[in-house]
């Protein structure tokens, strides 16, 4: 749930999603779910020459499994908090694993 929790804080921020087929789409993150499916609004394709067929698309739903990277706006990421969240998640997971 860490990444879900994380991406939720990026809603309404500009992100660039790089797909596994090399398309990079920039847009405003509208929503994200537990599978990290992503909804983007006001999208633009980074290399529009290569993928002209997307030039008329305004918003898009991306299945989480086809995402390679999400480029984040650094200013909107609280690294210390993220570290702690990661620690918590790890602690939880290991506690659960120990619990069996």
């Amino acid at each position: 749930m860490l990444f879900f929790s994380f991406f939720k804080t990026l809603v309404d921020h500009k992100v660039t999603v790089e797909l596994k087929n090399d398309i990079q789409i920039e847009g405003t993150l509208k929503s994200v779910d537990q599978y990290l499916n992503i909804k983007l609004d006001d999208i633009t394709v980074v290399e529009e020459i290569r993928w002209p067929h997307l030039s008329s698309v305004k918003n898009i739903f991306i299945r989480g499994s086809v995402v390679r990277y999400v480029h984040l706006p650094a200013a909107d990421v609280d690294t210390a908090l993220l570290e702690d969240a990661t620690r918590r998640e790890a602690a939880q997971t290991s506690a659960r694993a120990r619990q069996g």
Partner: protein
Amino acid sequence: MSFFGFDTTLPRDRKVVPGFSSQHDAFAGLEGGAADDNALEFEDTYDGLGDQLSDADDALNDDTFGEQPATQAGVGRDFDFASRTARVADAMQEEQMIYHARHGINKPQAPPPVQYQPAKTGYENYADASYIPRLEADAALWGIPPKAAEAPREQPGPAAARKMMSLEEVEAMMRQQSVHTTQQPAPQSIAPEPVPHHQQQFQPPGPPPPQFSGPPQVLQRPHPQQPGFLPPIQQAIPHDARSFHERPPMQAELPGQGVQHPQILQRPKQAPEPSNQRQQPRQRPPPQQARASPQPRQILQNPNRLSGQGQPVQQPRPSDAAGQRVPTGPAHQRGPSYSGPIITNPQQILQLSDEERKAYLIEEAKRAKRNHKIHMLSKDNGLMTPQDKNFITRIQLQQLMASIGNLDEAGSPEAIISDDFYYQVYAQIRGAARAHPGQPASQFAQTYLFQTGGRYGFGRRGRQGNADNHIQRMEQQVARAVEAAKAKPKNKQLVIEGSLGKISFSNAKTPKPLLNIKPAALHHAEARPGSAQGGKDPHGSVKDEATERRKVLKDLETVYETLMAMEDHDRRMPPPLTEESSADLIQAMMEWRHRLGQLNKKLWNGLRVMEPIVPGSPIPHPFILLVNHGKGMKALGRVFRHIDDNQRLTITTLTLINLDHLRVIQHGVPPPNSTTLPQPIKDEIDLFTATINPLLFAVFHDSPLNVVVGLLGLIVERTTIPWLARTKIGTSILTLLVSRAEVLREALVAQQAAQMLPAESLEQQLPDLAAYRDTYTKLFAALEPALPFLFGGFGHPAKTETGDDVHVWQFLACIGAAADPGQQQRLVLGVKDRVMETVGVARSLPGEEGEKRLHKVNLFMRGLGLDVELLS
């Protein structure tokens, strides 16, 4: 006649309008026009009770009359009138005759013959005595009004005659195609209908019509003509009959017989389909009634009770019909969408305008279609009992809860925090819009649980009693199941015999592992580095460094874990104690404090502050190792919030003593062949400045002069001042200390001045000031040789391009301010070249850049009580 009992005739072909007139005599048509004269008009006989009924709460009918909808599965197939009942009737008749022959007519027979009991299933409920009072009470209701008793007498003949008609009779009649006006009173009214069965037992219905001499059923009728003589089969009923005049409501007093009584009444519940049942009376009421003549009550009442499961028998028909309309679904006769007048009589249709009629017919067709559809769909209704559904719901809930995790964990704020930590905290920090504060899946589960409980509670309050009980039971079960699932080791994978592979369970929380590494292998892998280390390879030092680093990082993680635990613990702080706090609260506070102490101790140990300091050791103190990591620096800020002043001072002291071992100082001087620091070190220095300097400053700020002087003395004693002075961190720490001491000294001097004491005696009176003076002198002495090198690299004192030298000027300014005149002289000598150079460069630089540099120099000059302007 369709299989489902629908009227398959098209609305336009339909002469009889469904609705209340469903009791319309189906044989009225056979009698031709002559019958119409004698036909009872529905409007004439209808008492209008049905109109007073409200359909509003029909949805609650299930509560009142039982919860199980009548379905094919739930209803027995032994609903036949033609064969078994007739046989029973014959047998009963025989019995009756025998009895009559033996005993005369005085007494009712003892227990009825066994064959009377039809083979039934599903009547077990009605063995329960609790059902009787309801039925009996209603029977009494029905029986009490004298009007009801009299009503049948007014037209006994026709009614009885009509009831007596069997299928055979009808067939014969149809064959004859003759008109019998007397025997066939046309559309039978509803109100009198339930009555005849009583009347048959003690009220002679008049001579049997001659036309019916043929069928054997007619033979049964003699018994009603002998009121005192009761057929054995009706053993339960006779009381009803006999006592009718004497004590009408007496059934309640005869539970033993009541048990059988309801059985008879119960029959309609077994009827295959509500719709069937409702249609049957209309389509062929006479056969049923004729066959049933020995048990008139049983049969005659069928139309009443057919669709109202468990419904009181004696309820008047109209209310029955009205009450059933909604709940029985398929059987209901009027769609809710039809807004026109309620048609209860065919003639009403004729009175309607064309449009209305059309609308009505369309509506009818629609309804029929809909009913059929519902019927098709309801084929599988009732396959699952409510218990089954409960069971499934429970399983689903268990899975839901199990996938969420711990039951006690789920739903608590802790779970929300830990599951959605980043978002929740981020939202709090940044004030992001929280559309749904804290709505994890677990809460869905809770909500769902609640709703389900409510729903069942609503539907079952009739029999299962308390709805709360049910919810509780369910919750307990869920809790128990989750507990059990927790207790036994989870099967991550399942190998089913004969399956071609492993089936692994996965959910969003614990995705299916793609790599299946056995724990044993993992253990082995962990053990390996140790064994390799045992071998002590030639690169031992490298290895050591790596392990050392790993160890430090691990320690840091422990620190962080403790920190998080402490932060969690802080959130759980009980409300502040007041004088009227309860004992529980005080107890909670005590426990909280105790736990806080434990955590503090753990944190302290984790920081390794108290490990012995080995002076001159090449190996840095463990605490310094922690602080040398960026993570450690960041942690320290949080650590300081959770420790007390003494601990803070201890950490500060430890840090200052070991300044030489800090990486930011060790590597804080540019390497010989370069003027600038490598980027990683620069970043570290920035981090240190941002994280630890403020902490130190805070500690210095809170300390009295003697402590500050003591710290300064420790630095002078234990560290290499010349080196320190060339690093950014070193200079800034020294600046902090010296400036703080200077401020304190000024304050003291001002105080002394206010008290008009001679300045000379100041240092004698205040040993702290004397100590400061001593320490400063030592510091200056140590610093003096390094003065020319304070700015950057050794061989490049002229490199003024580096703009990042404010800290040096600040340091010089503060040293200069604290120095006595002799020291100031030496200080100026030491940095004179640099000052002149900088001023020269600044003058040559245009505008802002030059201003900036001049300003920096001026910092220092002012510290000496001079100004840059004087240099020109």
